[in-house]
């Protein structure tokens, strides 16, 4: 099974030959790969070298934390990759940015309001969690739209708080 794996914006052609052989960009490695205790912690022996990584799954990417460094990875299989190349680079960037709560918490302040113009880096909302006040900032300039929460409200992780259009 062949995959095109993008690590921090570099592409690797990874071919999984069988349970113990993987070819990366033409170089064949003898591997032994196991999930530890059924957790998203993985032990990998590559030609005898022992590595251990946390692999976190997010919406479309994987994050690999190994040897004290975090790598962002996107894995697509060959067929899908061909399709994407033929039809352009995947889904078009949506015009709307949804500010989601990075963690559960209490809304302390919303210094913006519907329709307000904002610049990149402006504070959109202050969320208290673990006794710290965390400022959630705008990733780009735009106009605030649909503020869905109120000051004093408890929100869940990943709950959409407001949008920027």
């Amino acid at each position, binding site marked *: 099974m062949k995959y095109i794996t993008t690590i921090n914006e570099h592409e690797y052609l990874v071919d999984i030959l069988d349970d113990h052989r993987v070819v990366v960009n033409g170089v064949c490695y003898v591997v032994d790969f196991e999930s530890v205790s059924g957790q998203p912690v993985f032990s990998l022996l590559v030609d005898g070298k022992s590595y251990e990584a946390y692999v976190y799954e997010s919406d479309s990417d994987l994050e*690999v934390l190994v040897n004290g460094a975090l790598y962002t990875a996107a894995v697509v299989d060959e067929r899908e990759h061909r399709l994407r190349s033929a039809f352009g680079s995947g889904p078009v960037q949506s015009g709307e940015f949804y500010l989601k709560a990075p963690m559960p918490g209490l809304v302390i302040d919303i210094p913006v309001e519907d329709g307000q113009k904002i610049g990149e880096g402006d504070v959109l909302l202050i969320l208290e969690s673990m006794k710290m006040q965390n400022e959630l900032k705008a990733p780009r300039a735009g106009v605030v739209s649909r503020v869905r929460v109120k000051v004093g409200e408890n929100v869940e992780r990943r709950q959409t708080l407001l949008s920027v259009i």
Partner: protein
Amino acid sequence: MFNKVLIANRGEIAVRILRACRELGMETVAVYSEADRQALHVRLADEAYLLGPAPSRESYLRSDKIIEIAKKSGAGAIHPGYGFLGERADFAQAVLDEGLAFIGPKPSAIAAMGDKGVARATVAAAGVPVVPGTEGEGGLSNDELLKIAPEIGFPLLVKATAGGGGKGMREVHNLQEMPLLLQSARREAESAFGDGNVYLEKLVEGARHIEIQILADEHGNVIHLGERECSLQRRHQKLLEEAPSPFIGDDEELRQRIGQVAVRAAQSVSYVNAGTIEFLVDRDKNFFFLEMNTRLQVEHPITEAVTGVDIVKEQIRIARGRTLSITQEDVQMNGWAIECRVNAEDPYNNFMPSTGRITHLILPTGPGVRVDTGVFPGFEISPYYDSLISKLIVFGQTRAEAILRMRRALEEYKIVGVRTNIPFHQKLMDSHRFMAGQFDTQFVEKRFDMETSGQARKPIPEIAAIFATLVAHENTERSTHVIQRNERDTSNWKWLGRWERLHR
């Protein structure tokens, strides 16, 4: 004389205090919020009583209820730990008023040192140098503060009068940004300590944050246990501490001089029990009083490691009216200790807090390693309390040994279920500046970066690619699997029931 102690706290510090009590043969009473029914301090205590819902205000800050439980359970003393009611003079007074012992200083000392303005004025009067600021004056209005600020000069710090742990603290670089920062500092202080008062302090640049551990008994003996280096901070929260300080090193004369000043500061408020005097030390080894923490400090274990003194046990002995078990002459710092605060926060995402259930946990162990924690596999890290999930302390004969040991301990430490700042500490251990001991309080924020610092390890993107691809590959394979497993279940649900019963 008390033989049963109520611990008015949660998390690692409640567990730490419980251990000391148990090792002294004392009975223990835990209190807990609804979020903490399964917490370690509840499970390890002899008795445990519910305080109320998860938010601190309805549980761990309910001083009335805590005192009531102490009386009901027959506890003769209350240990407040740090945070929550740790530095509340009114609570200490209420405890004494009920005829219970308070394992900490007298309310008057807490009050004097707790109001940072009063504290600075008091120690200044005792001849201890202080950092310039709005000392002596509590409760200034925003207008007054804005007027004084230019006199002190920028950059300066807005600090919570009742504060600690970096909460309600803001760095101010000019008058323009000051009103907004005052507002957010007050808001955070109000929420953390129930007191929105703030004061101003000059920001000494290139300075080190060094603190002295004090022990004082009721018989007039006051000693210090040497210093701790606490300069590695982010948003004024300590992240890593070490003892001794590499800046003081073997300058024994400086160590004793700061130590004596600390003792004098403690004596100026007739201090009893354990406390910590924080100093700023500039490049020329001038030192200034910053504040006194009138309680057990998070980082106390590194002092325990290098001096061999069990500070919590000593606290309890002092509260029982005993004299200190050691004199100043007995105190010797041997070897080197480092503490990394392991927080549930994502160093790759601006240190955002991370919550969730810990599904898997491997603690580092072996020679010279101590872990203080209140979590275990299955425990839920909730958004209600602070993000400290464990303290990893190592001890070595030399600073180099301690660093190498910390490095291997961090590597061994596995926490699954929440993101932690362990990768941050790993990068720090790899940083040449840290290794050389060349850092100040602004190092982490100004000269450290998760991407570029700690280049000791060479990048391994091919290995990351193999991990990612194999995980993605297995996920595809497993999807098929799940369906198959499910088909078996649906065809024979009795089997599942039996299986669950067997494996329960």
